[in-house]
């Protein structure tokens, strides 16, 4: 189906596609024929014709600078990256300053050494100001759960892109219910409730991954059941291809912050187990 140029472009866009896209002034024209269809059969993956989420101006603060509850593990408080490593397992070398850490463009992602199942994660992030680039090359990063399930981080404030790639999207699968982005440079909050997928002894998927996301205090994902791995971040699902679940993995998963060649800042990251199933 694809010609050689498209294949090359597709490969180049896996993880680092802004290298190409940074020079463009408008979102690349979607040619849906090259994109897999989403399971509901209505939209192609990264379909620019999919309706844009309605814009909601969030409140000023919500959970900004929220202190961690007593049973949470603070995984970044501004003081070093001792709880993180790079994707080769070496010490994380992103730059920290004041209370934040900044992605190191082209330096690869960083991930937690710790792993958690069925967790609540609080993260704050800020896209560069003044903004640089457009669409997917404007403040792009991501919360990559186990390097498999991505909650998109992007400067989506007055910056159009395909809906399933906006801030608050489950990338490539579920657009945010609304666009609750703040302007670039301002701190924004993600409060993420994640249920790990489960497989049985035969390796059959018995429970899908599920996510709820409050973005700046606005619900943008409400108990969304993931179709599978995010496309383009894990070899199990190449960029723009139909999502599916990877080989079975433990419910305990790490948190990875994506390097997508744009300098994005993160602060006040904490995580706690939700103790699900204890109140049924």
């Amino acid at each position, binding site marked *: 189906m694809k010609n050689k140029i498209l294949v090359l472009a597709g490969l180049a866009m896996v993880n680092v596609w802004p290298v190409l896209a940074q020079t463009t002034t408008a979102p690349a024209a979607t040619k849906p024929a090259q994109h897999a269809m*989403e*399971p*509901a059969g*209505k939209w192609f993956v990264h379909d620019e014709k999919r309706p844009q989420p*309605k814009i*909601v*101006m*969030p*409140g*000023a*603060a*919500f*959970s900004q600078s*929220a*202190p*961690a*509850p*007593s*049973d949470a593990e603070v995984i970044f408080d501004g003081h070093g990256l001792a709880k993180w490593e790079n994707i080769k397992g070496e010490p994380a070398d992103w730059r920290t300053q004041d209370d934040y850490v900044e992605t190191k463009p082209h330096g690869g992602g960083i991930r937690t050494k710790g792993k958690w199942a069925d967790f*609540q994660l*609080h993260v704050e992030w800020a896209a560069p100001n003044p903004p640089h680039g457009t669409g997917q090359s404007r403040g792009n990063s991501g919360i990559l759960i186990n390097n498999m399930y991505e909650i998109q981080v992007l400067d989506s404030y007055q910056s159009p892109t395909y809906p399933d790639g906006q801030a608050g999207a489950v990338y490539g699968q*579920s*657009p945010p*219910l*609304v666009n*609750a982005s703040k302007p670039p440079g301002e701190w924004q909050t993600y*409060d993420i*409730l994640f*249920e790990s997928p489960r497989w049985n002894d035969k390796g059959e998927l018995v429970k899908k991954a*599920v996510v*709820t996301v*409050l973005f*700046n*205090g*606005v*619900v943008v*994902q*409400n*108990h*969304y059941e993931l179709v599978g791995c995010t496309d383009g971040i894990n070899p199990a699902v190449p960029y723009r291809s139909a999502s599916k679940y990877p080989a079975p993995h433990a419910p305990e998963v790490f948190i990875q912050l994506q390097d997508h060649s744009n300098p994005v800042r993160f602060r006040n990251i904490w995580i*706690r187990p*939700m*103790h*699900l199933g*204890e*109140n*049924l």
Partner: protein
Amino acid sequence: MKSRIALAAVVATASIMPMLLPAAEVVVNGVAGFQDTPLEPDGKWHVHDPARPQPPVVTPGTFSAAATPPSDAIVLFDGKDLSQWTDKKGQPAPWTVENGVAISAKSDIVTTNQFGDLQLHLEFREPLLQGREGQDRGNSGVFLMDRYEIQVLDCYNNKTYADGATGGIYGQHPALANACRPPGEWQTYDIIFNVPHFDTTGKVTSPGYITVIFNGVVVQNHQAIRGTTNWKSPGKYTAHGPTGPLGLQYHKNSVAFRNIWVRPVPLVTDP
């Protein structure tokens, strides 16, 4: 363990239908509750069972205290008046408003607006009550569609039956954690609600679902509810329309509320 007076007080305030006595209250490990009630569907615990495990105590942060509303929210109480609320007969809400807070009094109140799926933010403050315990300590409640209750209670150093503690879906699903702040401090509820759906014969085709973040701690995670909240009943659905009012309970205690806003939007992700 308790004097008869204390028992009577607990019984009399034990939730929605205090007139239906006598109730054989029992005390287990210092927790008052009931074991002559129906079993929950899991077959393990009675409704309001004092032996049901207590939610683990978590000391919360401040989280969304004083969060300003998003642009698509309807502000239901901003500290000025209760013009968007009435009592259950449609008369002006009989709660007092002073110093920017509304204090429960006299009767339950309901919104004049009807809501379906929603995201709700509200803040409450428990009174300092010496010598009160169990269900008698700062009891109120948030009623979704005027029938599904998320319990409001002061459970800071105060034990009660697990399905009646703060953040519980009353009589059904205890909170996953006890994230209470001390009385006198403001506490936050961030609630996500999906309405139940019924077919034309009244059969449930999809239950209601409730997520509650209490002081920044998830205490209900898209929990399927079993039906209308009722005292000493495991919950049962009665078919209703797609919308209903929000209610706040007066339960003989003066509980303060502030900063109430709701986003009445469909909260089902487009597949």
